């Protein structure tokens, strides 16, 4: 871990530790800024909050959102919950996996896309739904999937 990251982590922890129940907000901010929670963050956060490393690690590993490895530039999450299943999310998911050449929890070799399952995006009247980063897309089809991918890849270039 570069020294700057260590400093950033300590700075975040110090800035937020006064909040009651500060651990989640701190971890969320670390992930927001660094893209993931490096394992080196655990002792830094633990010492700032006067917790054990096991307690911090336990929280990091409990929640689906926290990742210990950096993701691709775009994180694609495809909803796997019932409403989207009723509208063909299985077909969409299979297409996405083949199209990207990766499975869930994997990142493409060019580090452009990571693929994750998600259980409900609250867009159930427009199923099947998926999200790229913070943007939600509804009534997805394999064709629209390709269009969205081109669109987001174009934006980032």
């Amino acid at each position, binding site marked *: 871990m570069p020294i700057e990251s260590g400093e950033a982590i300590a700075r975040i922890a110090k800035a937020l530790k006064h909040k009651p129940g500060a651990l989640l907000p701190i971890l969320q901010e670390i992930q927001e800024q660094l893209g993931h929670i490096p394992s080196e963050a655990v002792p830094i956060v633990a010492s700032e909050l006067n917790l054990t490393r096991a307690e911090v690690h336990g929280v990091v590993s409990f929640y*689906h959102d926290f990742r210990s490895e950096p993701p691709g530039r775009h994180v694609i999450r495809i909803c796997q919950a*019932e*409403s989207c*299943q009723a509208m063909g999310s299985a077909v969409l998911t299979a297409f996405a996996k083949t199209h990207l050449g990766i499975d869930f929890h994997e990142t493409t070799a060019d580090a452009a896309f990571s693929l994750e399952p998600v259980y*409900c995006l*609250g867009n159930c009247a*427009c199923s099947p739904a998926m999200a790229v980063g913070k*943007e939600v897309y509804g009534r997805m089809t394999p064709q629209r999937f390709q269009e969205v991918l081109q669109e987001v890849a174009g934006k980032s270039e």
Partner: protein
Amino acid sequence: MNTLYIPQDSGALSLGAEGVARAVQSEARKRGEELRLVRTGSRGLYWLEPLLEVATPSGRVAYGPVSASDVPSLFEAGVLRGGSHALCLGPIEELPYLKQQERMTLARVGITDPTSLEDYAAHGGFRGLRNALGLSGEQIIKEVMDSGLRGRGGAAFPTGIKWKTADATPSPQKYIVCNADEGDSGTFSDRMIMEGDPFVLIEGMVIAGLAIGATQGYIYLRSEYPHAYRVLNLAIEKAQSAGYLGGDVLGSGKSFHLEVRRGAGSYICGEETALLESLEGKRGVIRYRPPLPAVSGLFGQPTIINNVITLASVPLIFDRGAAFYKNYGTGRSRGTLPFQLAGNVKRGGLVEKAFGLTLSELLYDFGGGSFTGRPIRAVQIGGPLGAYLPEALFDTPLDYEALSGVQAMLGHGGIVAFDDTVDMASMARFAMEFCALESCGKCTPCRIGSTRGVEVIDKILRNRNRKGNLHLLRDLCDIMVSGSLCGLGGLIPNPVLSALKHFPKDFGIEETEELH
């Protein structure tokens, strides 16, 4: 100047509302037309999104579903004056889908600018709070009791009793926590409120604070709702500057502070005690009850924890009175519920109605049948822990008691429809799989039973000792029901056993076969 309305609700955005808004602005500039574009929440008529509305002397006229490429032709047709066009739907309030609803809790969603205090006040906002400020804590609680309001998160516990318990527990610090971890598939009413009318939730939480003397509130919002996060924070900031929140609420000398906290992708954190653990910065592991959160909740202090819709229903009760609210509904299910119509349905969206309409009214009259045009074969009500019902039960009235009569539950009011291509055995398997994924791990029947459940269902489907394994599955479900502390392990047998009961063929069981 002409006023146009385009939703900024994430459902509308997911279908391209942002592009439509940009196209409208640029087309207006090109034509030298002046217009005021208001970004609203969604009306909840999602099959018509992105919806564009224009103010005319005879009310708002709607166009939809609009794509960015339709915008030039809409201007050509005189959209700013409500001109006729292939996409014109006429006066929005006259659409049967809306006209037949009883919009009470979601009265303003889709109409007002979500973060405009002026708009909120002009549509009846803060009247409830002003009335509540003239009452004692006990009087506030009595009013909530009299309204018959029950928790809308799923458990349907009487809200007034919860508040009374928290009030009766002495403590220098009490909390109001809003459960905005809307994780059930098929539900989005909390999101619509938070994105489309956040002040009503804030107002409800302030009233709850006044009721029990709590000075701090938290909204625990699921991380999957980034738009709601942005809108809520903006609304809180505005409410604070205007004196609706802070150290001296509307000059009453009473204080109430509010903060939004985000979850981190864990379904179990929608369970109230796991949510409190998570708010305290811990793993979302559920707690034993008693003590109830109302007695010992957040940081061990008396805490009212209510769902978004519950809290958002409170201002109306104080604006119009408990009797007005109670007048809607049936039996012990009083008031309205925002039903959410999702899955394989033609006209998915939000339908707020008094309790008591039937499932088939919702599925066919509102929903228009399946999206695919095939027969609707099964419906799951109340999220991933809710039962699957077959067509034979579609005339069941939607109220808490009638549904428990058919071993189902209303939950948070989400209704997911499946057409006849669904394989119910795989849905039962998915329920167990989901439970295994989201179990907090505290109770063995849920933590391990869910994985064993997947395996047993697989064996049944492969016809390996089917009779014995069916017996085992029922046994396992029995242990999960009686041996789990919370609703995840305790209720996941609902979808499994209801699928088995109503759709035995999907499990390879012939009708003549002995099931027990």
